[in-house]
């Protein structure tokens, strides 16, 4: 059958492969090449060697954005996963009424786009700040950071909760039964039975939240737009601003170089994640 199918490739593979070539491969390779060039449009690109990378690494705003993003990813990952797992554990209890409606409510914010979410929270946080008498988001970087955390919690706790619930439900009930017969209390059951059996789910969720944290753009743009003075600017937004908000020919190349660095960073995180999952699979 494979032989016969082979002749049909123009119909089966070509549309996707062509779109992929133009929508991903060519821009990717071109982008990589342009990171070594000075340019305003693609046709006037002049190779400049590693200048863009040197400039990107010596840009204090970029370094600031990197540490800010790393801190944000760390805090949001820990909080999201702890809260999501706690809610998932509570919602999978026997005889708790209304679990389905709670689940529905907690998941809902995921369907609303990042821009709209960011805007809603911008209004809400500004109102709260003005009632307390603090400075508004545009001048208040501490509120900007925790506002972003709150917003991501609101959005992603429900998502991760769904995945944790699925993981918890796939633990064979014999295990829990056996633990109960052996006289384990709830705390022991959690640490000795549920969490070890949940490790693959936890890895997936950790990975999803870390990459989401690093790639975050829409929410950042809509909530604070990097104000005040780029203090709440994350990596993705920093790259975007380097491209489109700065004047002068050299910034395009630097922006592209930053994008390549960012891309490599994300790929590294994914590789670490893959390795972690693999080694755990071997153990089981």
């Amino acid at each position, binding site marked *: 059958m494979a032989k016969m199918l082979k002749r049909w490739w123009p119909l089966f593979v070509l549309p*996707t*492969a062509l779109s992929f070539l133009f929508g991903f491969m060519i821009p990717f390779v071109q982008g990589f090449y342009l990171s070594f060039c000075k340019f305003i449009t693609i046709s006037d690109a002049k190779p400049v060697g590693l200048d863009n990378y040197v400039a990107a690494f010596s840009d204090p705003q970029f370094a600031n954005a990197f540490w800010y993003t790393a801190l944000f990813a760390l805090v949001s990952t820990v909080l999201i996963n702890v809260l999501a797992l706690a809610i998932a554990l509570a919602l999978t209890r026997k005889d708790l009424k209304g679990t389905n409606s*709670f689940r529905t409510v*907690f998941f809902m914010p995921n*369907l609303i786009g990042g821009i709209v979410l960011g805007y809603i929270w911008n209004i809400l946080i500004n109102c709260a700040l003005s009632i307390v008498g603090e400075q508004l988001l545009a001048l208040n970087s501490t509120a900007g950071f925790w506002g972003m955390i709150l917003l991501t919690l609101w959005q992603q706790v429900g998502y991760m909760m*769904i995945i944790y619930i699925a993981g918890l439900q796939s633990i064979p009930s014999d295990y829990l039964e056996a633990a109960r017969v052996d006289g384990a209390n709830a705390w022991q059951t959690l640490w000795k039975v549920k969490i070890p059996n949940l490790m693959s789910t936890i890895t997936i969720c950790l990975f999803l939240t870390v990459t989401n944290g690093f790639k975050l753009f829409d929410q950042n743009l809509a909530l604070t737009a990097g104000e005040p003075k780029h203090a709440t600017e994350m990596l993705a937004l920093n790259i975007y601003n380097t491209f489109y908000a700065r004047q002068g020919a050299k910034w395009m190349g630097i922006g592209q170089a930053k994008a*390549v660095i960012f891309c490599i960073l994300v790929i590294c995180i994914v590789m670490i994640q893959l390795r972690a999952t693999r080694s755990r699979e071997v153990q089981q």
Partner: protein
Amino acid sequence: MKRDKVINKILAVFFTILSLAWIYPMVMILMNSFKEETTITTSTAFDFVTSENSAGFANYIAALEKQGFLAAFGYSLVITITSVALILVCCSMCAWFIVRVKNRISNILYYLFVFSMVVPFQMLMFTLSNMANTLGFNTPFNICFIYLGFGAGLAVFMFAGFVKTIPLEIEEAATIDGCNPLQTFFHVVLPIMKPTYISVGILETMWVWNDYLLPYLVLDRTKYQTIPILIQYFRGGYGRVEMGPMFACIMMVIVPIVIMYLLCQRYIINGVISGAVKG
């Protein structure tokens, strides 16, 4: 056992309160969307709607008439439907081919697709928007090809994962009965893959409908705005921003989504779970 019951009661109360807090941001927008323009200020956003500051449906009418809401909604709808349909049809065919025809090219293609899932959009935003402009992909009707290229990674990956679990005998039987590959695919493979179509469709819909940066950079902004672009435009808008109509716009964006969600909740949640397990 009695202790369990008490804990359940406490939890039920706690989660009820938490759920109310969870939907409060949306309720706040809803209330503000009915207020009169002059009564909307930063410090009174939490206030309830009363007979004094109520504007009735004036904000909604303004949003529909002046702010280009309907056009943006229409463009978003067109882009989402064409892109997701294209992704589902093309990527499922491509994934089936890649899994069934084993050679070096199909292997390379598969790994390239997987690789593309990892790459952040910032890496290609400049070159991609440039190419879209020169090749004429900057209209809501052509942008779906870019979405096909960019969304192919996840879709091919999920479809291929499922195709691997389909026993080859079923397809061989169809071939012996005289089906050509196209017939085999549409009459045999496609019905088996239905659950995957739903999962992929939901994940891609959530992505395309809410995507901001790609259409913002690729589309000809002077002519076409999608919903996220419209909302962001209000925000960075020039001159005085009309808050009331903007709240009305946000509500009109959220309400259809919430209705859709309540109607096909089971599919959406299953889609998210299968996406996470495979991703």
